[in-house]
C-alpha cells in the first residue's frame, strides 16, 4: 500500500470516528415509501435539533411490518393499518401513531376536457368495467356543459402492492357494495380489468399516453406533475378537488377511534375531499428496548406529531387534524417499557 494513501485512510477513519458523538442514540425504522420524502426531511431536522439519529429505510409497508415483527427495527411504518391477521401474527400489541395524511387523486386523459366531476358510484362502475364509454349517461349527467367524446374507457391501476391502492380500494369498498363483494380492499387486489403501471410514475405515464384512460395516483404526485385531476362528490353533495387543505378538513370532521385506525372515506364538511388516509409509524405498546432508546423514541414520536407537522404541507402532505394529534399523544404517553411506565 502507498504509505501516503494509508496515512490518508487512517486520518479519514479517525475523523469519521470523531464525527459521531460518543453517546448519540440511533433509532432504526423501516416501511412505507409514500411518506418517505416527509420522513427524510423531518428526520434530518430532528437529528440536527436533538442529536438523535433516525435511520429510516423506505422498503415498503410490507417490509416494515415484517421487520417490526422480527424486532429488527425500533419502529415500522405503514400506509394501511394492520389487519386482523397481521395483528394476530405480531409478538406483542402494536400502537399506530399517525404522522400525516395522504390523499389519492383520480387522474384522467380525455381530449378537450380539463375539469371532470365524478361520484363514488361512477368510479366504482368504471373500475368494475360496467361503464365502458366516456359518453355514458351516468357521466354526462354529472358533468353538464362538458363536451365528452365517445371514447372507450381504459382503467389504469398500480401493478405493485401499494398504500395508494389500499386507500383507493378501501374508499370504493366503503362506498359501493358491489365493489366490496367483487373486489374488496387491499394493497394488491384482483383488478377486474385494465392495465397496471409500476409506481405512481408508471400509472401517470400510462394515463398521459393512453387517450380515454383513468387512473389514480398520490395527490402529491398529481400536483407536482400538473395532471388533470377529477373533482369527487362528498357526502354534502359538493364536488371537491384534492388539496392539502381539503384533505385536512375532511380528516378533521370524522370520528377518529382511540387507536386512530380509520380510513377517511367520507366527510361531514362541504369542502372536504373524501379519498385519503393517515400514514402511521408502528411501535410496540410495550417496548423492549434499552431505557435510553425508549426515551429517545418517545421524544421523537412526540416531536413528529407536534413540531414535525410544520414540514408536511411544503412537501404536499396534509397535517394531522387536532383531534388526531390528541389521540396520538394519548397513545404515545401510554407506551410502556418492559411493562412499566417510563
Amino acid at each position: 500500500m502507498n504509505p501516503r494513501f494509508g496515512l490518508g485512510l487512517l486520518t479519514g477513519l479517525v475523523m469519521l470516528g470523531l464525527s459521531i458523538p460518543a453517546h448519540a442514540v440511533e433509532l432504526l425504522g423501516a416501511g412505507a415509501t409514500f411518506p418517505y420524502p416527509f420522513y427524510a426531511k423531518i428526520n434530518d431536522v430532528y437529528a440536527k435539533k436533538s442529536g438523535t439519529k433516525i435511520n429510516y429505510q423506505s422498503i415498503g409497508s410490507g417490509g416494515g411490518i415484517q421487520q417490526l415483527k422480527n424486532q429488527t427495527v425500533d419502529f415500522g411504518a405503514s400506509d394501511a393499518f394492520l389487519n386482523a391477521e397481521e395483528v394476530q401474527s405480531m409478538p406483542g400489541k402494536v400502537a399506530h401513531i399517525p404522522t400525516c395524511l395522504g390523499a389519492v387523486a383520480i387522474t384522467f386523459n380525455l381530449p378537450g376536457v380539463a375539469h371532470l366531476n365524478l361520484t363514488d358510484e361512477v368510479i366504482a362502475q368504471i373500475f368494475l368495467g360496467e361503464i365502458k364509454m366516456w359518453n355514458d349517461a351516468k357521466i354526462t349527467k354529472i358533468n353538464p356543459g362538458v363536451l365528452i367524446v365517445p371514447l372507450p374507457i381504459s382503467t389504469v391501476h398500480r401493478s405493485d402492492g401499494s398504500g395508494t391502492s389500499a386507500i383507493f380500494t378501501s374508499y370504493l369498498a366503503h362506498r359501493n357494495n358491489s365493489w366490496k363483494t367483487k373486489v374488496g380492499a387491499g394493497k394488491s387486489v384482483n383488478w377486474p380489468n385494465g392495465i397496471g403501471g409500476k409506481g405512481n410514475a408508471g400509472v401517470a405515464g400510462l394515463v398521459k399516453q393512453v387517450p380515454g384512460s383513468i387512473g389514480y395516483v398520490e395527490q402529491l404526485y398529481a400536483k407536482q406533475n400538473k395532471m388533470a385531476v377529477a373533482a369527487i362528490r362528498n357526502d354534502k353533495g359538493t364536488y371537491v378537488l384534492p388539496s392539502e387543505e381539503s384533505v385536512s378538513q375532511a380528516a378533521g370532521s370524522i370520528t377518529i377511534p382511540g387507536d386512530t385506525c380509520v380510513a377517511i372515506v367520507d366527510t361531514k364538511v362541504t369542502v372536504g375531499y373524501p379519498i385519503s388516509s393517515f400514514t402511521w409509524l408502528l411501535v410496540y405498546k410495550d417496548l423492549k428496548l434499552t431505557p435510553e432508546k425508549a426515551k429517545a423514541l418517545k421524544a421523537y414520536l412526540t416531536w413528529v406529531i407536534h413540531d414535525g407537522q410544520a414540514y408536511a404541507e411544503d412537501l404536499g402532505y396534509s397535517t394531522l387534524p387536532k383531534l388526531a394529534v390528541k389521540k396520538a399523544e394519548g397513545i404515545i404517553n401510554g407506551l410502556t417499557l418492559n411493562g412499566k411506565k417510563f
Partner: protein
Amino acid sequence: MQPRKRQTIGEWIFKASLVLSGGLIVAVLGLMCLTLLTHAWPSIVALKWKFVTTNTWDPITSTFGAEAFVIGTLLTSLLALFISLPFSLSVSIFLGEYAQRGILSEVFKAMINMLAGIPSVIYGFWGLFVLVPWIRTFQIWVGIPPFGIGIFTAALILALMIIPYAAAIGRDVIAMVPNELKEGAYSLGATRMEVLLTIVLPTARSGLFAGTLLSFGRAIGETMAVTMVIGNSNLLPTSIFAPGNTMASVIANEFSEATNAIHVSSLIELALYLFVITAIINIIGKWIIQRTEVSHG
C-alpha cells in the same frame, strides 16, 4: 529444504482457497434452491396443482392461481424467440463466416457486446418512450384498444435484448466449423451460399440451437424491462396485443408489499418455478454446446 517446504505449504493454501471459493458458489446455488423450496412449501401444500391450473390471483381472498402468468411468460418468451431468430442468425453468419476478421467485424462485435451490457431498465425506458407510441399508432390504425403496451410490445423488447446472446454463441459455433469441410466443398465447385447452406449451417446446427435455447432462458427470467411495457394485467391475454403479466414481473411488483404469509409463499413458489425452468434450459443448452465442441475437437 526450508524454502521448498514453505512453497508447498503456500501451494496447498492457494489450492485450498480456490476449492473453497469455488465450492462456496456451488453451495450458494444449492442453498438458494433449498430456501425457495422451504419458503414455497406452505403454498405448494395449500394450493397444490390449482396453483398452475387456475387463473384467479386475488391476495384479499388468498386465492392464488398463476395460470395467466405462466402463459404470459411462455407467450412473451416464445414470441421474442421467433422475432429475434432471423436477426441473431444473420449476425452469427455474417460474423462467423463472411467477416471473421477486420475492422467491420470488430466494430460489429463491440456493438453487439454493448447491446448485451445495457441495463434492462434502459430497455424498458426506451420501450416505454419510443416503442410504445409506435405500437399505439399502429393499434389506432388497426382499430384495437390503443394501450401501446402489452404482450407484443414486451416480446419486441425481449427480442432485442436476447439477440446478442444468441448471436455471440452462433458466431462462435459457425467459426468453429472445420476449414477442411468448407475447402472440400469449394474444391468441388460449390458457391459460397451453397457451402453455407449445405456444410456450415448443418454442421453448426446443434450449437445454434443451444444458443437459441440459452437466449430463451434469458427471456423467461427477464423482469424489469418486461414489467414496464407488458401492462401488468392478471387476466388471461385474449390476443397478442392484450396486456398480460409474467411470473418474474408479478414477483417484482408484489413482493415488497406482500404481508399475508400465503401471498408471500405463492410469490416464492413462482420464483421456484422460474429457477427450475431456467436451470433446466441452461443445463440442456450447455450440454449441447459441450457435445458440439467435443465432436469437433
